[in-house]
């Protein structure tokens, strides 16, 4: 057991290393990536706020993710209901159909959409991007919501029925509250997937319309890299950790991510 423990902790260190390294590198006072940092300064953390292109991309990513998450849930929730209440044969078919997009390498899908959007005029538009994110996030939203829908107690609906409520009233007053944790989990899940998505955004966003991951990629690949990027990376990682801990303490992280198969 001890050997296993050591192994696991080595893995833990290696997993955290790339994230942890961004912090000292970002604290450097000069405009290049180096370790150990040359002098200590917080200027690059501050620089994030004065880099308008970067800020733009953050805001764009945020709205994109919010839109994708809301629409994905709105579309996936009815599906979860229908599938939960159908027979097993129809279920399998529908589940495979809805989660199909997961099977395709994203680069293939991105290329296909790139050419397709060109022909229907959605190339480089925000809506096109949202739609592309919908296709790949709905499977996850669906899975998460299906778990939630499956654990609903039918007797609560029946009680509401007998007490005089219309189906719409029962939905609003009894079913939605039961689904609350599932809905929140699905929202966060979809939001994260969309916010962090690189491939689709890379292929489908216009030149001046970059999302955050794309902007970071271009800085690394093409040029314009400054320690502001590691600084931003570190901040993003912190946010991720906080989010993780919150989710684990409330829902339990493995249950939350259970939608991921």
């Amino acid at each position, binding site marked *: 057991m001890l050997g296993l423990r050591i192994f696991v902790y080595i893995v833990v260190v290696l997993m955290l290393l790339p994230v942890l390294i961004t912090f000292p590198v970002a604290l450097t006072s000069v405009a290049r*990536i180096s370790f150990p940092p040359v002098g200590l300064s917080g200027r690059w953390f501050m620089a994030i706020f004065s880099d308008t292109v970067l800020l733009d991309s953050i805001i764009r990513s945020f709205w994109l993710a919010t839109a994708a998450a809301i629409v994905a849930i709105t579309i996936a929730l009815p599906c979860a209901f229908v599938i939960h209440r159908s027979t097993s044969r129809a279920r399998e078919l529908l589940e495979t159909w809805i989660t199909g997009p997961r099977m395709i390498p994203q680069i293939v899908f991105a290329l296909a959409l790139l050419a397709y959007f060109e022909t229907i005029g959605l190339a480089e538009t925000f809506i096109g991007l949202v739609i592309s994110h919908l296709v790949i996030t709905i499977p996850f939203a669906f899975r998460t919501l299906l778990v939630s829908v499956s654990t609903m107690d039918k007797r609560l609906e029946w009680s509401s029925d007998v007490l005089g409520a219309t189906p719409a009233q029962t939905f609003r007053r009894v079913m939605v509250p039961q689904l609350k944790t599932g809905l929140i989990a699905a929202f966060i899940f979809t939001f994260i997937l969309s916010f962090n998505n690189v491939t689709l955004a890379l292929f489908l966003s216009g030149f001046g319309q970059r999302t955050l991951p794309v902007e970071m990629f271009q800085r690394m690949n093409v040029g314009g890299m400054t320690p502001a990027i590691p600084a931003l990376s570190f901040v993003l990682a912190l946010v991720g950790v906080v989010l993780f801990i919150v989710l684990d303490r409330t829902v339990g992280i493995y249950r939350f991510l259970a939608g991921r198969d």
Partner: protein
Amino acid sequence: MADAAARPRNPDRRRALLSALLLLPVCALLLVFFLAPLIQLVNLSTFAQQPSAQNLKPPHSLANYLNILSDPFYLQITANALLVGFWTTIATLVISYPVAYYITKISGWERTLISVACLLPLFVNVIVSILGWYILLLPYGVIQQILSSLGLVTGSLQWLRTVPALVGVLTYEHISFAVLILVSSLQAIPQDKINAARLLGAGIPRIFFTLILPLTMPGLVASAILVFSLSASSYLVPILIGAQRIKVLPLSIFSYGTELQNWPLAAALSIVLLILVVAITYVFARTMNRITRRGEWEMV
């Protein structure tokens, strides 16, 4: 009174109609924005040249495919991509399985800590992870400085742009997926079966091979499939860590799709990648199913 029996039919039909209505948005979305683009991609791959404003529908031909299948360059990059996928899958599973096992045995803050570390890549975007490793693997980068001070290396080493670095970073990226799947797989093993085996005197290796491994095989297969298909089609890491020195198929798709603007060729390459990945994972899954079903582990 007799028509009371006829009445239940109506609620059934109404329900079927409602179900169809509720499924309409997702079906429409997938038809229009998933199926149609893919079909069009196949169509696109049969164009001999890039469609342009002057020539909206170039003639159809299989020239691209012939080109790909006969040119040793394309065969090489395809093989590279599949190999990268293969090695990444092995490395990922070898690391993730013990870690997942350990996670199921602990609880509390230790579990949260290890889970944070293993699942963090899922919460931050890929570029952040790649950037971190880039910094670490730079010549005179952090790791080399540590090793140097320990006297293990001298001079500066070019670790970026090597296959091990590529596979290493890809493994890093995909450990999260594998750990996730394997933890639920391991947690699904009923503890009383293990206890029963212990009571019967089975030692740990025996319990592992006859009980735990077979019961988690579906999880292993699922992880393997997922990691393989993700890493074989990865282009970001080859670009940023491999600096495009290691040629893999997805890289060409990327180039032809964006900079070089030869969409038909890119499309053909994508189809090839798609078919290969799907075929390999399908065959793998089927074989594994058949093997595990031969059930010496049916003892449970």
